[in-house]
Each structure stands twice: as structure tokens, then as C-alpha cells.
């Protein structure tokens, strides 16, 4: 994947627009910035650790990076289809205090099947350096969107932009699967 495609892929997989609608908020619709920023950082760290181990993990499982691309494409298409139909993440019970950074921000909003899959395939095929800007940019975008106060209008806008990113994720998934088939 080239740099632009990697950026689009991570934006689509983390989907900051849609994810913003599923992070802990104050009663006035503002995101709880402490847990959001901390959770995003924890999720980012965990995903980077996974990225560093991606090639070894696939080797241990005896899966070639090329073949894993097919599986990754399939996962992304399935997840993206769900994103299209369920444009707002289901509400989760949120703990008070810092715990909200771990649940539900770090997991399952940032560390999710789609981000895990994308991290494994992109790090194994292109290296950690190539996927880092995309993952960091998407995480930063998520935290930045926390500054938006949700209301009926902003929710609709975020949900629809999230759908656009879901379509992008479908395309990324198809592209990955085709690459997996065409590569040696």
C-alpha cells in the first residue's frame, strides 16, 4: 500500500467519525477528553506493539503475508458492511474515572477486529514505518473530534461521514483481497 492508501485505510478502519459517537461523554455532549486521549494512546500503543510482532506472529501461524491479505480484506468488508448499517456504535456501560480509557475507548473502539486485522496485514507486508503515519493520524483525528459537542445535527453529520468512511473501508477490503490473490 502506498502512503495515501495507507492513510485512507487507517482512517476508514478506525473511522474517527463513527467512533466519536461511541466514546464516553459528559452530560452536555462533550467527550470526556481525558479518557478519550488516554484510551486512544493506549490503543495506539497496543496496536503498535502488535505491528512490531506482526511478521513473527504470521510466521508462527504459518501464514504468508500475501495470503493474510485475503483474510484481512474479507474481515474489513464484513466489518464495513456492518458499519454501513449500524452507523452509531452500540452504547456501552462506561466506568467512572480513568477506567473509561481502557473500556470502551481503548477496547473495543480503538482495538477492534478491523484495526487489528489492518495492523497485522500492513505491518507484515509494508513494515511498521509505512503504517505508522496512518494509524497515528487516525488516532489523532479521533481525539480531535472529541472537541465537537454532539447534538442532533452533529450526530447526523458524523454518522453520515462515518458511512462514507465505511464505503472506503469496503473498497480497501476488496483491494486488499485482490492484492492477496494477485501477489506471488
Amino acid at each position: 500500500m502506498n502512503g495515501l492508501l495507507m492513510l485512507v485505510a487507517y482512517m476508514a478502519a478506525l473511522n474517527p467519525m463513527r467512533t466519536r459517537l461511541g466514546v464516553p461523554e459528559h452530560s452536555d455532549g462533550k467527550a470526556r477528553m481525558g479518557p478519550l486521549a488516554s484510551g486512544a494512546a493506549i490503543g495506539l500503543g497496543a496496536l503498535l506493539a502488535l505491528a512490531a510482532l506482526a511478521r513473527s506472529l504470521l510466521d508462527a501461524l504459518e501464514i504468508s503475508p500475501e495470503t493474510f491479505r485475503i483474510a484481512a480484506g474479507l474481515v474489513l468488508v464484513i466489518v464495513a458492511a456492518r458499519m454501513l448499517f449500524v452507523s452509531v456504535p452500540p452504547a456501552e456501560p462506561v466506568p467512572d474515572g480513568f477506567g473509561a480509557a481502557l473500556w470502551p475507548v481503548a477496547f473495543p473502539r480503538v482495538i477492534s477486529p478491523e484495526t487489528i486485522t489492518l495492523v497485522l496485514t500492513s505491518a507484515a507486508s509494508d513494515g511498521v514505518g509505512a503504517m505508522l503515519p496512518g494509524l497515528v493520524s487516525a488516532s489523532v483525528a479521533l481525539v480531535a473530534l472529541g472537541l465537537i459537542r454532539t447534538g442532533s445535527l452533529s450526530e447526523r453529520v458524523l454518522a453520515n461521514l462515518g458511512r462514507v468512511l465505511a464505503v472506503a473501508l469496503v473498497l480497501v477490503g476488496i483491494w486488499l483481497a485482490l492484492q492477496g490473490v494477485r501477489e506471488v
Partner: protein
Amino acid sequence: MLKSQQMRKRIALHLSVLIIGGAVIRVAVVPAEVCPPVTALEVSASIEAATTWLVGGMADDGTYTYGFDRNEDVINQGYNYARHGGVTMALYQAYEVIGDPDLLAAADRGLAHALNDIVEHGGWMGWQPGGDIPLGANGLLLAALSIRRRATGDPIHDELMRGIGRFLVGQQQENGSIFASWDIRAEEPRESFGPFATGEAAWALALLDRQMPGEGWGDAAGLTLDYMGEDRNRLEGYATSLPDHWAAYTVSDIRPDLLTTGRVEYARRLAGYFGIRLRFEAQRRGDGINLWLRWYPGPPAGVGTAGEGIGALHRLSVEEPRLADLTAAIEERLVCTAGFMVRRQISADEATGGATTSLESGAWFYRGYTQMDDQQHVLSALLSALPVLEAMEEVG
């Protein structure tokens, strides 16, 4: 308390989706690609066992044992002359790599059988094993002769090679397609195509060009190579791209100055077809749930052709800078294929000890049946893998 219970349930749900989803993907989409470790010595032994099967089963008239069913302990008495040409060609390939004069002698016996049925017509020469004159068998015969000449330097068959070359070119159409046979009654090409005959003929022309440079054979090969890469699937009605290992041989053996951008891109696409075929094959274990999801390990001839194709493209990727980025992945597939095919070959110890034990040892079976082309194609693939493994072992 209630909130914490709800939270635990939701965490458990999300983790379950991850674990179960991961397990399903693992089992159904990406089972382990098993590439048993293999050495050059093991590949050499496997090559020797395969050639022993082919040569040991030769009749006095130079024909090979066609097929053998180990479940029924029955020899298939049928025959196929394109396969005769293919096996003879593979024995010359083996001689070229191994250098064993017994292999040259055996291949020459196979060749002599074909030379009994050479006909001449309108300036060309062709092998007519019966009925119409087939393109594919003649293509493989010419490939065999060209490899023989390359390996021995012996010019004894030069005029025959040119004569067959003229037959192949005579079958060729303006768009590069090649009709699959010559109708002996109508005395003209029969307007039909074969799935592999076109590639066999194109490869033969590319090889002939290397032996007889400056006579125009390479241009004819290039024309058909372009047809195979651009138009064949559409014009001959193939729903998917044909993973044609003969096309891979053609693009690998065509003169370097004829390697246009389009032909290099075709080589890249072919590498992809063989790559996915061999990755999929490495996932096949033929037991348990894997049997239901991946079926039995594939027919050896099919796996072998993919191995041959990737082997031919390996040679090209090493020499052609525009494909250099593929070399490492191609080597991985080639060595992996050698690993699992060496393991799948029936050893002397695994032979059942029946009346036809000699037709078990050294063969590759598909659900109890083997055919001469099973040995031929896997042999050719292993011959491509051998120098790669030797180079790897030399580097350490």
C-alpha cells in the same frame, strides 16, 4: 454493581467475537501454509526417483508407462502423444541439470519413437502420431529437441527443428493465435484451439529462436505471447485467466530484447496466478476439517505445472531487473513447493509391495492414481528448485 455486571458481559461479548471470528478465519480462510524444510540433496533424490519411474517404465518401442492405479494394482494401457512429448522434454531438462548420460539415452529413446512418425508437407515437417497433426505434441517435441541441442550442442536434428518450427508458424494466425491441429484430409489447419497447445508452440518457438538466432522464430513466439497475455481469454472463451505454465516458459526463454513492457507485465500476472495456486496448495493437508475446506492435496500434474511456471519465472526474475522485486517471493514459493512435493512422493518404503511396486516408488499419486505427466510436471518443477536450493545452501 449492575453496571459492572453489564460491563463484564459486554467485554466478554466483544472478546468472544474477536476469538471466535479469529478462529473461523484461521480455519476457513488462512489455514497453515505448510512448507516442510527440504535440502538440495533431498530434491536430487526425489528427481532421481521420478526419473527412475519414467525411465524404468519405458517399453522397448520408446513409449512410457501411461498411468497406474495403485488401489487396483492396474496399469492404464491408454496413451497420449502430447504427454509423450512432454515427458521426453522433461527427461532432456533432467539431463541438462543432472548431466547423467543415462537420462540422455532414455530421452533419445523417447525421441526416436516420435521420429518414426515424422511427415513432410508443403515445406514443413510434423510429428503425426495418428490422425490429424497435433500442435501441442509438435510443440513439445520441438521444445525437447531444442533443450537437447542446448544441453549437448549436437546439431543432428537442426533441419527437423526448423521443419517443425515452420509447421508451428504455419498454424499461427495474424493475431498470434495458433490452431491446435492440421487437418490431414482438408490439408489445412483445423480452426480450433487447445488450452495448452498454444503455449507449448510459443515456448517451442522461443527455444528454437535461441538455438537458431536470426531466423525470425522469436518474433513468432512474441506474437503468440502477446496473444496469450492480451486476447486469448476473451477470444477463446475462458471465464478466468488461464494460469499457463507454457506461457511462463515462453516469457522466460524469449530473447531479452523481445521482452516488451507488456510481456514483462504478463510475466508478473502469471507469477501471481502460480503464487496463489501454490499458497493454496500448501494449505492442503487432506485430513480432518482441512479436507472439507481444502479437499485433497491437488493432482500432482496440476501442482507441478504451477511449480514449473513459478520456476520458469524465477529464472526470468533473476535476469530481468523489471521483475527483480518478485525474486524473493518466487523463491519462497518454489522452495515451499519442492518441500511439500518431496514429502508427497511415494518412497520405496511406502510402496505397498505389490506386483507393480516399481510403479509406486518415485511417483506422485492423486487419490491412488498416477500418470506419466504427474511425474513429468513435478520433475520439471523440482529441476527448477534444485539450483535455487543449492545457491541458498551455499550462502548458508
